[in-house]
């Protein structure tokens, strides 16, 4: 999306919440570029999706397959949420007490809806891990999961189409940052995800 909602005549100072992007695990996994919008300490951080959209927050629904409690002094929970295209790594620490308690309560396996912030981490071996810091997580039913797959597929296709047009600043940035990724692969990925839902 090229039009930033904050440019469309909003009064200065009016708070606008960052929307939660719908992105499949298969695309989020490819993210390598993270940036800040503005110089301020509180400026939001964005992860640039290979299809050419910035994302400060994501919404995902999948199956929580495993969760672990870690840490001694600073307890935090890690979990894996699987969608038709791959795995999301989620975590909630004591800085998000509500999210941590929600995650602690869920018994795997279960369909969960997660709202959270994507972050890039460099592992000791130099590889990059994309993980989602949970803001909230709730147990949902299969219908909600299927609706999310449709939603994520539709948004992915929208982004692939916009990327083909190739005029938005974030699309151009994505082409610079991910020169080896052809956004068309995500069209195929969306198709495969949709095909996994039984008609």
């Amino acid at each position, binding site marked *: *999306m090229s039009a930033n909602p904050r440019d469309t005549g909003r009064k200065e100072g*009016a708070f606008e919440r960052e929307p939660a992007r719908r992105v499949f695990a298969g695309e989020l996994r490819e993210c390598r570029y993270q940036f800040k919008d503005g110089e301020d300490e509180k400026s939001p951080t964005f992860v640039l999706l290979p299809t050419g959209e910035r994302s400060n927050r994501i*919404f995902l629904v999948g199956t929580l397959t495993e969760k672990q409690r870690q840490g001694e002094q600073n307890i935090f929970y890690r979990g894996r949420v699987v969608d038709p295209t791959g795995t999301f790594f989620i975590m909630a620490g004591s800085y998000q007490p509500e999210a941590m308690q929600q995650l602690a309560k869920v018994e795997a396996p279960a369909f969960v809806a*997660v709202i959270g912030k994507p972050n890039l981490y460099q592992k000791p071996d130099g590889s990059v891990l994309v993980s989602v810091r949970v803001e909230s*997580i709730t147990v949902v039913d299969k219908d909600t999961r299927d609706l999310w797959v449709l939603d994520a*597929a539709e948004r992915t296709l929208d982004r692939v189409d916009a990327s083909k047009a190739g005029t938005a600043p974030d699309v151009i940035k994505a082409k610079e940052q991910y020169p080896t990724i052809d956004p068309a692969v995500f069209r195929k990925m969306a*198709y495969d995800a949709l095909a996994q839902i039984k*008609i």
Partner: protein
Amino acid sequence: MDFSEAAERISRKFSKDGQPADPKKIEGKLRRLVQEFGVQPSEAERSVTNELAKEYNLPSAGSGTGGRSGGGTEEKTIARAAPGEWVTFEGKVVALSAPASPAIAQGGIIADESGAIRFVVWAKANAPAMTEGSWYRIESAVVDEYKGVANLKIHSGTTIKEISEDRALIPTPVPIKDLHPGIGGVRAKVIQEWDASHERMLQSGLLGDESGTIKFVMWKEPGKEKLAIGSVYNIFYAQVDEFNGRLSLNLNTATIMQEDADIPVSGGESAVRGSIVHIAPGSGIIKRCPVEGCNRALSRQNYCPVHEIQPNFVYDLRIKGWLDDGEKTHNILLQRDVVESLTGISLDAAKEIAENNPLGMDEVFLRMRDAVLGRYVICHGREFDNRILVNKCERVKFESSEHAALLNRAGGAS
């Protein structure tokens, strides 16, 4: 700001008085004030005008001292009067309001065929008192700006002559979406009436026409009557105020005529499909102040910000949260009946939980959160003040036709 236009305007004003004023120089001064010093454009124009006036020994605008007789002021219509100008025109006093300060003898609204403007008569002006409904010729008054709205100042240099003939003056209403701060008239229907938030307030609510909606307020004053909900009114000479970028109509100065008709009102109604991504604190079961017309949410200790401790509170349900469609996040507010049907928890059931569960009201919040967070819904309602007041909220169902269409779209171009 269009600097050259403003500079031309100022220059014209001075050359009319036989004083040479170079627009280029004026433009430079304006630019410096606005761009380097961050001065508001209207204020910059005013201060440059005053600076030149001082230089040429002319009375400065808005100072209210030393009027010029004739000559300098051009006869014009109200709509064409711009801040910083001296004006002479004929108009009808359509409203008078109580002076806000002893320095002010009279205040109100004066109108002609082209429009209307607020006016202030300084006590020092020693002007004859004007009466509502009469026509006057006003010579050498000054237009300036107060809170971004043009305002007519009648000072000691102004001459006021009553005109005996009564001319017909028929104002035309404008669509609500075209209103701008100042004085305005609309033909609109009362679509909502809100609880008074102040004891001096007679009525507040929402007016609507085909183009949009606007908040209105009427303060208690002798002779003021409430508007009837659902009725259509022609409202002229209302004050259009701006606060935080939103407009509202103050009807105290207005001439209001009820009309026996019905007009279509812009839905303002929107439907947003998305997922509920956040439930805000203050959702679930809440206690409200029982004092009539108050209805505020109480704190946990039953404290109302206005009526203090209220042990005989009234329970209510509501959900405040964020609905996210992936592109934009909408603030939503769900009232009791919508909450009941969406969560499946009735007010009575919630009361029972609040009073008997060890977690009390928190338990209701948690159950409602777990029931709706992360779910896909369609919210119908009126968007107001950046928030959707939801009157219907239904869950989205899986449609295999949507599934098939997406499969085609994804497969079609691969």
